[in-house]
């Protein structure tokens, strides 16, 4: 598998082989995706849905095909798939495009303390704009959602509940089916952040009954600059166009503009065709493996890492002990060493991890974590147990140095 990913053969200037364990931040790309991009620009490139010449037709067919691939991947239909620049833009599109029209003074928006800033700040800002109430659900000590507190916080005034299917800080898999049911029972809209989960496990929007689901290509083998917003057919009509301009209009007059149908209506400007077909190519690669196998593999690595590091002196491991509740992310700290320094020592051993707040300040503050930061190793399809052995040795070196 590693041979499909040229970057995984990188040797650092100090001679160490790279061990890439920063997959929750972004994933590496297989040759098939890199070549799909090159071939697009070498043989196919044109603007889409505008120009009726040979390349224009080829590009439009490829772009429409990519939309179908994405739709099938999450069990949606094509006109429920909006291409965006990433999860962050997708969530902003909901907050502005649906939120601004549907939230008014006193309405409640409920999010979890464990949300990524991209699934936290847009809702908070919406609440501030519309004088709504922004409610943040407390967690249990292991970073899972306190479901009793959640149930109490959802009321008849709740209009939106936003929750990640998998958190990026600790890799917690949240019970979105249950959360969705509680949300819908109160008549609120259920918004799922799939940035971590869609790359790592099978996704079925019908099963999780999400009204909106967002995810990013770059976290699942695809190029940067492409993301997806799934909007359920029954709610997409309520989503107002947010970005306006070329390609999303029907008729433009001085006094008013009428807009095209979904999904064009939501894709203003020249779309990122490269990104869309790159994402489709990445999905093909993942389906070859099978998404259930991706999760199983991540868990296997996680369990191995967990068992190697649990009980090691000075090492603190975060997150639930029940692996069924986790994907391939392991957040940890070494007592008395700032995670940045841990990351630096690991890096000098070739091991690439992330240190810091992981765009998740609320959970770190809530759990009162030292330095408001952790070290985070995150695994993907191309990692194996020997990567974990190097990680564990490097952790020992960090302990010796500091």
């Amino acid at each position, binding site marked *: 598998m590693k041979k499909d990913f040229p970057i995984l053969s990188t040797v650092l200037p100090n001679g160490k082989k790279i061990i890439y364990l920063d997959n929750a931040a972004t994933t590496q790309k297989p040759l098939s995706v890199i070549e799909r991009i090159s071939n697009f620009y070498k043989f196919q490139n044109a603007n889409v*849905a*505008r*120009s*009726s010449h040979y390349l224009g*037709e080829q590009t439009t*067919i490829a772009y429409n095909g990519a939309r179908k691939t994405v739709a099938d991947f999450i069990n949606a239909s094509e006109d429920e798939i909006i291409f965006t620049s990433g999860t962050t833009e997708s969530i902003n599109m909901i907050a502005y495009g649906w939120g601004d029209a549907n939230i008014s003074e006193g309405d409640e928006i409920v999010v979890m303390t464990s949300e990524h800033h991209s699934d936290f700040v847009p809702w908070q800002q919406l609440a501030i704009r519309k004088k709504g109430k922004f409610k943040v659900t407390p967690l249990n000590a292991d970073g899972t959602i306190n479901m009793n507190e959640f149930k109490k916080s959802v009321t008849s005034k709740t209009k939106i509940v936003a929750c990640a299917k998998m958190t990026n800080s600790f890799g917690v898999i949240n019970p979105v089916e249950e959360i969705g049911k509680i949300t819908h029972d109160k008549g609120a809209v259920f918004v799922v952040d799939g940035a971590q989960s869609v790359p790592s496990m099978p996704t079925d929007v019908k099963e999780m009954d999400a009204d909106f689901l967002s995810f990013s290509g770059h976290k699942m083998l695809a190029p940067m600059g492409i993301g997806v917003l799934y909007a359920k057919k029954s709610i997409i009509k309520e989503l107002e166009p947010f970005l306006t301009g070329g390609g999303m*209009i*029907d*008729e433009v007059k001085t006094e008013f503009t009428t807009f*095209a149908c979904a999904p064009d209506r939501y894709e203003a400007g020249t779309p990122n065709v490269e990104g869309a077909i790159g994402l489709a190519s990445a999905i093909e690669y993942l389906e070859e493996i099978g998404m259930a196998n991706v999760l199983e593999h991540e868990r296997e690595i996680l369990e191995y890492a967990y068992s190697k590091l649990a009980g090691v002196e000075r090492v603190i491991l975060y997150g639930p002990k029940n692996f069924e509740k986790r994907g391939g992310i392991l957040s940890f700290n070494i007592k008395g060493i700032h995670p940045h320094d841990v990351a630096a020592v690991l890096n000098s051993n070739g091991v690439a991890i992330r240190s810091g707040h992981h765009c998740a300040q609320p959970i770190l503050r809530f759990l009162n974590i030292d330095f408001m930061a952790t070290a985070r190793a995150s695994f993907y399809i191309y990692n194996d147990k020997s990567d974990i052995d190097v990680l564990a040795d490097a952790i020992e070196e960090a302990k010796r140095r500091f």
Partner: protein
Amino acid sequence: MDDLSDLYAEVIMDHQRHPRNFGKLENFDREVQMTNSSCGDQISLQVKFENEKIKDLKFSGMGCAISMASASVMTEVMKGLSIEEARRFSDEFLEMVKAGKIPSDDLKDAKVFGGVYKYPMRVKCATLAWYALQKAIE
């Protein structure tokens, strides 16, 4: 003929040059205006019904060869059909042009638009008149 023939078959060129049922009906039951703003195409369609059948219909408008010929062919195919048949035939036509589905022989001359499927940007041109018809018999 050359490679343009799957888009501009002789039948299409003939309808484009000599559109059938072009103009206005004196007497009609339904009138539908439709535009395809992405091309600037416009169509106005008038239909006269009798005994659940399309007794007569005429169109006027402006657009590219494909859209004008498709409107002309549509009026020829539809004249005299029952509303039930009209619905089925137009569905068949739309499936053929949008998804490449092979139509039944019922579509007659309209089958020459089968090649449009390969030109996604021209699909809107070929379908406008047929959507207008569907609206008229709704």
